């Protein structure tokens, strides 16, 4: 007598458990739409077709080395003033301060968060993991433009990079997480299993938010 109702309720419980995990991709889609957390796309954009020469926007750059990561990355200029739609290049110098080869991953974040989706990057060192030899110095070029659709009340935006040392983490899995386009397949064996599941989830997200 109770079985049909019981079955429905158990299904509801399982569904809500799955929903908790579905919140992960949903959250990213939501952020994409609302600019919730200033998360920036990690894939290259196309050049702009429009320009708005009448408007000036200040873009400043800052980097932050997370915890013990032995990196120093600095923009050549702290701030540039750009017109929306115009392609701009900014040089960054990077250095591995440690005596051993390390892998760096830069995570970009934009403030105000609303501006994140209006900042398009064509080339960025954050698109890839950067393998750096001991004490190696490198220079990177960031090519970006600000969308002409940028809301009028935003006159100033900041692009911040947080630098992580991911050498000790599973580099392959990380690459897959951050650059799903390059990895259409994952080995789902052994201890990489959890990571590859998450990578797959993220691939889905990107699929949804771009599709």
């Amino acid at each position, binding site marked *: 007598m109770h079985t049909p109702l019981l079955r429905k309720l158990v299904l509801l419980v399982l569904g809500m458990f799955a929903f908790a995990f579905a919140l992960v991709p949903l959250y990213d889609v939501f952020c994409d739409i609302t600019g919730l*957390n*200033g*998360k920036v796309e990690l894939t290259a954009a196309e050049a702009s077709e429009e320009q708005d020469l009448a408007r000036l926007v*200040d873009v*400043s750059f*800052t980097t*932050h*080395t*997370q*915890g*013990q990561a*032995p990196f120093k990355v600095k923009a050549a200029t*702290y*701030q540039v003033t750009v017109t929306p739609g115009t392609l701009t290049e900014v040089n960054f110098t990077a250095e591995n*301060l*440690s*005596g051993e080869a390390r892998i760096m991953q830069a*995570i970009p*974040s*934009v*403030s*105000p968060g609303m501006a994140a989706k209006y900042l398009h990057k064509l080339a960025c060192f954050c698109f890839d993991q950067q393998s750096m*030899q*001991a*004490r190696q110095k490198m220079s990177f070029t960031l090519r970006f433009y600000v969308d002409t659709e940028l809301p009028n*009340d*935003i*006159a*100033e935006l*900041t692009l*911040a990079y*947080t630098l*992580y*040392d991911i050498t*000790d983490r599973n580099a392959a899995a990380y690459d897959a997480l951050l650059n799903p386009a390059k990895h259409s397949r994952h080995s789902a064996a052994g201890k990489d299993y959890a990571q590859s599941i998450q990578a797959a989830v993220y691939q889905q997200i990107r699929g949804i938010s771009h599709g």
Partner: protein
Amino acid sequence: MKIAKLITIAMCLLVSMFTFASDYNMRVGVTDISNQVYQLHMTIFWICCVIGLIVFSVMFWALIHHRRSKGAEPAQFHESTKVEILWTAIPFLILVAMAVPATKTLIAMEDTDKADLTIKVTGSQWKWHYEYLGHDVDFYSLMSTPRAQIDNMQSKTENYLLEVDKPLVIPTGKKVRFLLTSDDVIHSWWVPDFAVKKDANPGFINEAWTNVNEPGTYRGQCAELCGKDHGFMPVVVEVKPEAEFQEWLANEKAQRALAAQQEAALLDQTLSKEELMATGERVYMAYCAACHQPTGLGLQGVFPALKGSAMVTGDLKAHIEIIMDGRPGTAMQAFAKQLSLKEVAGVITYKRNSWGNDTGEVIQPSQIQAYLDGKQEEAK
């Protein structure tokens, strides 16, 4: 008559309570925004008081007059759609009235107009780091209340727990933008007098701004639980008139250059053990004691003991390395970017000669530099 009396008494009580509590109300603060927030807070507070007074007057009237002991006979009514609609609609209208000023203030707070000065604020366990973007000035700000006051060995002074070694300095009458991020867990930067409270999230930046009208020293604290010493992470902001601020900024830059020179000069000197121990003790108490404890005993299972530790009494190079580069995946930070050569030399000397550790070694700043050079060599 009786109700009037009751209401008067209640009002008097409320007012006197309020005067008594005026020191314990929300801070009016020193910015236009903090003023608006305070007004909003008071408006809503009084609306709530009035509603509460009306509803509870009715209830207590019933409790007093409709008692069985007074022979009250229960009435039979138990529903009225008209009344239900009324007391759904009226609160709704009151809410709309509240929402209007709240929305206005919120829009003003989120105004991202151009700022005159941008300061990057980075939280880490358990200190703040301030960087004046575009000015090449940055420093850490740590609580300066002595351990002895916290442990009740010394009497507590006026700004107990709300004082730092080096406060943030900003100018009056300028829009100052704060970019917030974190080095480890989530922190929250809060100065009540500015009505600014914003979380510092690792890997992301957040933005807040203020425009302070009056010079002065303003104090706040970390507001988001960030681990063991969350309660010992104050924020102190000194607000100076523009001219004084510029002077301070120029002075800071000059001092940085001077400090760099001194660092270089130190390499040729041999410092006395007393001097190094004194420096070391100061640095240890400010940077290390939070985890490893003033006794050097650490916290079992969380933070290792330094007393008798093989790391601290053994190989010097390993000791220098862990202090300079930290240990990834643990709370041990890389202090290379936080401490000067002299400070590192001092704190290592201190650790190797305290709490019964008696290596007798005296470590010179030049040895720390030698370690750095050595790493450089290895790399080549």
